[in-house]
């Protein structure tokens, strides 16, 4: 068996070198075709009719007006009379027509009568949740009562982080063609290899008959794994229309209402400590929602899991809103926010520098040395010692500066992935995986691994992804793609190279184990002058190509990938105490990351995570109206995202070092987003001297907190 191990750090020619993304120019010239850009011959436009009510029973539905329109090719009832809808945006009916305008007109002709039922759309005030609130059993560790009695200091606070949406720029949707029991699916998905199985099951066709293709996806962030209602309906509309393809993508309002969101988390938290900052006890009563399924308890206390005395209570609240989906590091941003906010408040009460408090308690974490080193590194990059001040001691001006920090942890690793490498007698190399590039740089990383292994330039590798006909590769979730695809590609290219060595060895009068592939040549390890150019070596294959598989088995990654990281976020903000506006000055991310294949795209991931966190800290929240049961900000004007001028300076430090590199590839799409909100919340508290209990830190909330202090 070949030695699949990654080459030693100092021997790598491609891996570890900052490399421009391979598909960059296709995107920046507008040539990249997303599924929402496609228009296969005969394509019809689909449109959905959705519920305007958060909770209602459909008493009648009349589609005849739509059916009789010229150009309307199919009309389907999705939720028939007699059924209840549980949230605004629920799919009621769908149409397919020859133009998009006509499809939207047809939807307006469908007459639906509703019996409106009582709804609950807000969980912020638990007292109003009534029977929608379901308490979980209390969890107790150690003796929290005794620990709180004996504590030198007890800090208490209430904290809240709202539901936010994924707000993918390319909305959820697909183009689907169903002819008999054969289906062509062009989705926007994080799951090219798996989504066809999901759709095939719903459409009751053999899974082998579903052909999925997707070259580009305009954002997913955890919300695009399943075939979804709109996939199934597009298929059934296509079938009803005689097999013409149907394009069905959500409009922005529906996207924000039903295509996934991050559950909220609220908590009353009490922390006990000794005078020196050693935490002795944690008590929390938390509640959360992710729609009608309620919301689970985030993993609190976060990272500092070994606090000896704990009492945890949690209540899930079911509300009439679209359901939650995995949102970049599910439950971790909430956990980090609740925990790190409570710790910062404790540090303030002790008049202690939080860097010191977090370091002091690092033994409660699974990776004390990593966090201590990162806190130190972050403080250095932040000029913390010079710029930090005790809470509220930020001078007499109206604009107050402050700093805060938070921590993250994540698993990552490598998902199940298979790769096929073909070496042709003309020297061309084709690498195929049923994977997808979410914009994370997956194409680039796979190409780099193949080029490294085969000793070829990047341009010599033809990479094919985004097609369910290629060997299956896992869904892109949990930061496991880079670990999975890099490992399967490493093995597959290595296996193919072994075959080539076997063919070439006689020509070089040696044995295959004596050969290496370097700089476009196959040469002898002991005598580099004895070599063949790649093309000549491949010509020895005659008329036979080499085709070899490689597989990453998540249960046995063989040292190529592993899981488990830590990281630290630090924020420096200015708060205008007259307007309540929070301005980002600087953000520092220090991230433990294992072996980094492409530092360029890895850094971009962390920049992106930081900016996404800034959005969540300062702007983003789904706002529901209890009177109407509807989302008030189901558009991008009032569902706010940060712009180019809202983000301040961002500094990224990747913990690239031999001791981390030897852990193999880990993946970092998710961890750097986790602590951003908490660190900014803490920086604002540090700046203005009081805690703003709920994020996002909008001017009204900041001013309210300031007024509370003055009152």
């Amino acid at each position: 068996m070949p030695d699949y191990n990654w080459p030693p750090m100092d021997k790598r020619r491609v891996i570890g070198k900052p490399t421009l993304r391979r598909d960059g120019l296709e995107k920046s010239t507008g040539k990249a075709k997303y599924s929402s850009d496609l228009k296969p011959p005969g394509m019809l436009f689909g449109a959905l009719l959705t519920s305007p009510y958060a909770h209602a029973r459909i008493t009648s539905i009349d589609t005849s007006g739509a059916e009789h329109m010229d150009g309307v090719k199919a009309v389907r009832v999705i939720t028939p009379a007699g059924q209840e809808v549980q949230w605004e945006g629920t799919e009621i009916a769908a149409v397919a027509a020859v133009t998009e305008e006509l499809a939207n007109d047809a939807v307006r002709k469908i007459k639906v009568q509703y019996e409106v039922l009582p709804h609950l759309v807000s969980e912020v005030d638990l007292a109003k949740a009534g029977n929608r609130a379901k308490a979980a059993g209390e969890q107790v560790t150690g003796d929290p009562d005794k620990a709180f009695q004996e504590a030198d200091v007890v800090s208490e606070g209430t904290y809240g982080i709202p539901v936010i949406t994924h707000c993918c720029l390319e909305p959820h949707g697909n183009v689907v063609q169903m002819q008999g029991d054969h289906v062509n699916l062009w989705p926007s998905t994080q799951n090219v290899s798996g989504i066809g199985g999901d759709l095939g099951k719903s459409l009751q066709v053999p899974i082998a008959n579903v052909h999925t293709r997707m070259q580009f996806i305009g954002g997913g962030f955890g919300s695009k794994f399943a075939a979804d209602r709109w996939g199934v309906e597009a298929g059934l509309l296509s079938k009803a229309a005689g097999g013409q393809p149907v394009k069905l993508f959500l409009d922005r309002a529906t996207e924000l209402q039903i295509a996934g969101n991050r559950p909220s988390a609220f908590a009353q938290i009490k922390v006990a400590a000794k005078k020196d900052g050693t935490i002795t006890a944690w008590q929390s009563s938390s509640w959360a929602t992710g729609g009608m399924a309620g919301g689970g308890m985030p993993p609190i206390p976060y990272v500092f899991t070994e606090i000896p005395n704990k009492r945890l209570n949690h209540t899930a609240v079911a509300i009439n809103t679209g359901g939650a989906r995995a949102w970049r590091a599910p439950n971790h941003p909430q956990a980090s926010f609740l925990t790190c906010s409570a710790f910062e408040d404790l540090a303030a009460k002790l008049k202690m520098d939080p860097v010191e408090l977090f370091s002091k308690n690092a033994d409660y974490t699974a990776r004390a040395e990593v966090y201590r080193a990162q806190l130190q590194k972050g403080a250095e990059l932040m000029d913390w010692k010079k710029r930090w001040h005790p809470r509220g001691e930020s001078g007499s001006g109206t604009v107050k500066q402050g700093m805060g920090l938070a921590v993250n942890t994540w698993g990552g690793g490598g998902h199940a992935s298979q790769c096929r490498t073909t070496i042709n007698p003309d020297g061309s190399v084709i690498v195929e995986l049923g994977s997808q590039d979410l914009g994370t740089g997956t194409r680039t990383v796979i190409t780099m691994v193949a080029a490294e292994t085969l000793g070829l330039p990047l341009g010599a590798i033809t990479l094919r992804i985004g097609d369910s006909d290629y060997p299956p590769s896992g869904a892109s979730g949990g930061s496991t793609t880079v670990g999975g695809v890099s490992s399967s590609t490493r093995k597959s290219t290595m296996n193919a190279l072994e075959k080539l060595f076997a063919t070439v060895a006689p020509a070089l009068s040696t044995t295959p184990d004596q050969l290496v592939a370097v700089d476009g040549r196959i040469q002898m390890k002991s005598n580099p002058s004895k070599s063949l150019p790649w093309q000549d070596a491949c010509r020895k294959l005659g008329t036979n190509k080499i085709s070899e598989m490689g597989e990453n088995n998540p249960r046995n990654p063989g040292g190529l990938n592993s899981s488990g990281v830590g990281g630290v976020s630090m924020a420096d903000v200015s708060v205008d105490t007259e307007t309540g506006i929070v301005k980002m000055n600087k953000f520092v991310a220090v991230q433990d990351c294992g072996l980094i294949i492409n530092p360029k795209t890895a850094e971009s991931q962390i920049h992106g995570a930081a900016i996404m966190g800034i959005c969540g800290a300062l702007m983003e929240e789904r706002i529901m109206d209890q009177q109407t049961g509807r989302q008030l900000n189901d558009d991008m004007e009032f569902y706010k995202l940060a712009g180019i001028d809202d983000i301040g300076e961002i500094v990224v430090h990747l913990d690239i070092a031999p001791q981390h590199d030897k852990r193999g590839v880990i993946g970092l799409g998710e961890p750097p987003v986790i602590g951003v909100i908490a660190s900014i919340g803490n920086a604002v508290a540090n700046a203005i001297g009081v805690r703003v209990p709920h994020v996002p830190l909008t001017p009204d909330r900041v001013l309210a907190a300031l007024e509370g202090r003055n009152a």
Partner: protein
Amino acid sequence: MSSRNDSEAPRKSKAGFSRRGFIRGAGIGGGVLGTGILEKQALAAPPAEGKFVGPGAVPITLKINGKTQTLKLEPRVTLLDALRNHLELTGAKRVCDRATCGACTVTLNGKSVYSCTVLAIDAQGKNIETIEGISNGKPHPVSTAFVNHDAQQCGYCTPGFVMAAKAFLDHNPNPTYEQVKEGLCGNLCRCGTYFGVRQAVLEAAKQVKGGRNA
């Protein structure tokens, strides 16, 4: 919790008023109009050139990327939908669909516009330039700079960003860092690529003819 009967109109039914419906209505000089202050103003305003067209498809002549093309479109069709659905120029993306995010940015007579909020019929007689037009043959320096500074991830906002940056540099060939941040605040990115965008636009400024740093 609250309950109410169905006689209360929902906030914004598919049949009701929307900003998009308003601009479309205004564009055809009084087509499908609902109720509200804005519509009343629209009714009071005379239709462009006093000419009524539609609601069916009418010939619309557009000059796109230097090429004149005549399409048969309903007057309510936006420029963005004309490009994407009828001309397969899909570089401009439909994201917010109401002039917030900039993913649909094209230029009209050299000025960047949100094509989701321009009716195709109103774009007649103007020079329309799309990402495809500036990417014919050699990539535009802005596109290249976006690659060099990794100013894109999923890439869905990118063509709009590139067009906005191109138009910005055409009018501000030698911008400062602060001007770049101000000049491009009309485009939103969800992946968080702004850091690279800032660098890319500054680099492109050096490459684009007319820049003092060229």
